[in-house]
Each structure stands twice: as C-alpha cells, then as structure tokens.
C-alpha cells in the first residue's frame, strides 16, 4: 500500500518553484507563504503538483512553477496534453500562510498567492474543491494521484488531515 507510507523512495519531492505531472506519489514540505496546488483528473487518475512562491512572474520565463500566473497555465497545458479535460479536473490549494507577525504583513504574499490561483482556476473552468490556506503555520503536503488524488496536509505540531 503506497498510501500507508507516504514518505518513501517512490515519493517525488517538489522543491520551491518545481512541479511534477504523473500518477506517482508527490510531496512538498514546509509551505509557509508559498502555495501548493494539486490538480487531479479522476477519470485518468493523473495529477499535477506545483510549489508556487509568488503571485506574479512579471515577464520572467525561467521558472514557470515559481509564479502563480505561469504555473497554472503550465499545469493545465501539461494535463491537457495527456488527455485531461479541464471540466473533469479538480484542484486543491494548501499553504499561503503569514508566518511572521511583524514582517511583511503589508505584503501578505501568502494570501496573494492563494487569490491569484483562485482567479486563474476560475478562468480555466477548473473546480477548486478544497483549500487549507492562511493562518500563521507551515504545512507539508503529500499527493497520491494513484489513490484517488488523496491530499494529506501535515502541520508542525504533528497533526495531519486529509483534504
């Protein structure tokens, strides 16, 4: 059972600004203001995951997974190429916290990341079915496309919830 042991050799780690597409287990750790986005097509059991850092790319093309405005179209295109239909795809977002009370509260990058992704998903007619965003704490996420697109979120205090 791959899902009973989410943290194993088969799990692909997704770092900041990285993304993966496939049916293998994926994981990203320590989302603060960053946003994890998972897309899943239940008909094909295919998924995509990205670790977004900032809302706007401002024309930068080198790391499309790093920015919300380039990451969403990229993932949608990759899934479309594999035969997914946008209307079948379901999305979940995780992260977008504000870890520090004193710093950057005026920037609120976490909230802006989440908002940008919500708007883009709507534009692509992709259903956002669940979110675990905001607050002042970090989150790690495992995503199992082969197990019904199961998304599990862990916090620093050890609590873990399925999304």
């Amino acid at each position, binding site marked *: 059972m791959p899902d009973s042991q989410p943290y194993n050799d088969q799990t692909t780690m997704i770092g900041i600004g990285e993304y993966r597409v496939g049916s293998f287990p994926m994981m990203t*750790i*320590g989302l603060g*203001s*960053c946003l994890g986005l998972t897309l899943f097509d239940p008909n094909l059991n295919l998924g995509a995951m990205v670790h977004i850092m900032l809302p706007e790319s401002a024309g930068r093309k080198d790391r499309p997974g790093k920015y919300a405005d380039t990451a969403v179209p990229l993932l949608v295109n990759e899934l479309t190429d594999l035969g997914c239909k946008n209307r079948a795809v379901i999305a979940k977002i995780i992260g977008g916290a504000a870890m*520090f009370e004193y710093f950057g509260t005026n920037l609120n*990058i976490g909230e802006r990341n989440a908002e940008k992704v919500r708007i883009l998903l709507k534009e692509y007619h992709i259903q956002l079915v669940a979110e675990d965003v905001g607050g002042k704490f970090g989150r790690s996420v495992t995503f199992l496309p082969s197990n019904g697109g199961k998304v599990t979120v862990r*916090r620093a205090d050890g609590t873990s919830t399925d999304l």
Partner: protein
Amino acid sequence: MKLSTVQADALQELGNIGAAHAATSLSVMLGSTIEMSVPAINMIDLSQLGTIMGEESAAMVVFEIQGEIAHGGYILFYITQESAVRLTNTILGMKEINRPLSEMDQSALLEVGNIMVSAFLDATAELLGIVILPSPPALTIDMAHAAMQSLIAQMQEETNEVLLFATELVCKEYKIDSDIILMPERSTLLRIIELLENMMKSS
C-alpha cells in the same frame, strides 16, 4: 553567482568575528562554555532549500538587516524546539523538558536572539566600518522550511538562489544546539564583499 576562494575566505573570517561575539554573549547568559563551528557558506538554489531546512519544528528569531544598508536581507537565531526548551530552562531556572514553549519562553528566546544577533551585527559592522542595525525581532516556532521560505519570498531582489551563511553554536553542558544564519540580499552581499576586498588591499 559564484564566490571566489578569496571572497569566501574573507566572508568566513567576517562570520567568524561576528559569531565569536554572539557566542561570547550566549556564554555569559548561560554561564557555560560555547563551542562554535567554522561558518558554512552555502549558495543554494531555491528548489533545494528543503535539503538544508526541513520540516523539523524550530524556534527562529528573525531580524531584517537595516541601517546603512536598507533592506539588506535577514539574520536569524535558529534553535531546535528541544534545544529552545533547554535554553530557557537554563536561563529561567526551570527543569521540565517535555513541555510546550510558553509565553515566558518566547520572550526569553526573543531576548537571547536579540542579544546574540546584535553582538554579531555590531562586530561585523565595526569591522566593515559601516552602520548595520537589526530591525525589531519577529519570532516563529514552526517548520523551519516554512519560515525560511516566507523570508525568501519577501526579499527585495527576486532571486533563484540565496546565500545562507550559518554558524553553529553549541553548549555541551546543557545540550543546546543553535545557529546564527545570515541571508543577505544579493546587493548586500556584493557590498560586503567589496568592503572586505578594499580592506584587504589597504592593509
């Protein structure tokens, strides 16, 4: 961006001086000996941050670097949760190890971080001949990666790699393991290197 050996050596020396002052202040607070590692300079790609900072829960007291270099980056006092409890126990005269960090622990950590980071910055600023000041501190006790990632996201200069400059400070007597981590903006790093190079030329 690649650092030359000379530049890396000069930075390491700067870090040594800063960390030595921070270690001394910690030593005074604990009334015990502090061992200090050689400062490690890591130029790290953002996608690889997880290999250095993980999911472990840590207390981090964070300061923005201000003064003559405005928005110069961040400097932080990093301590694992277990070490943080042992540190505040030692300072506040408590015994219980298996407990969450209370408000009193948090203010103690803020104070310790403040003293150590100020000592670090004072010493390095004096050597460089410029004014470097820490912002008021911010404390987080959570996943180390999540905190670090949030700081990188709000840096002024958009970047795909960061320089992490870490010195480990260990108190064997009380089993306290902590780090001072400097994460300068790219322009700050270049400015510091320039100041160091001028200093070497003139001496």
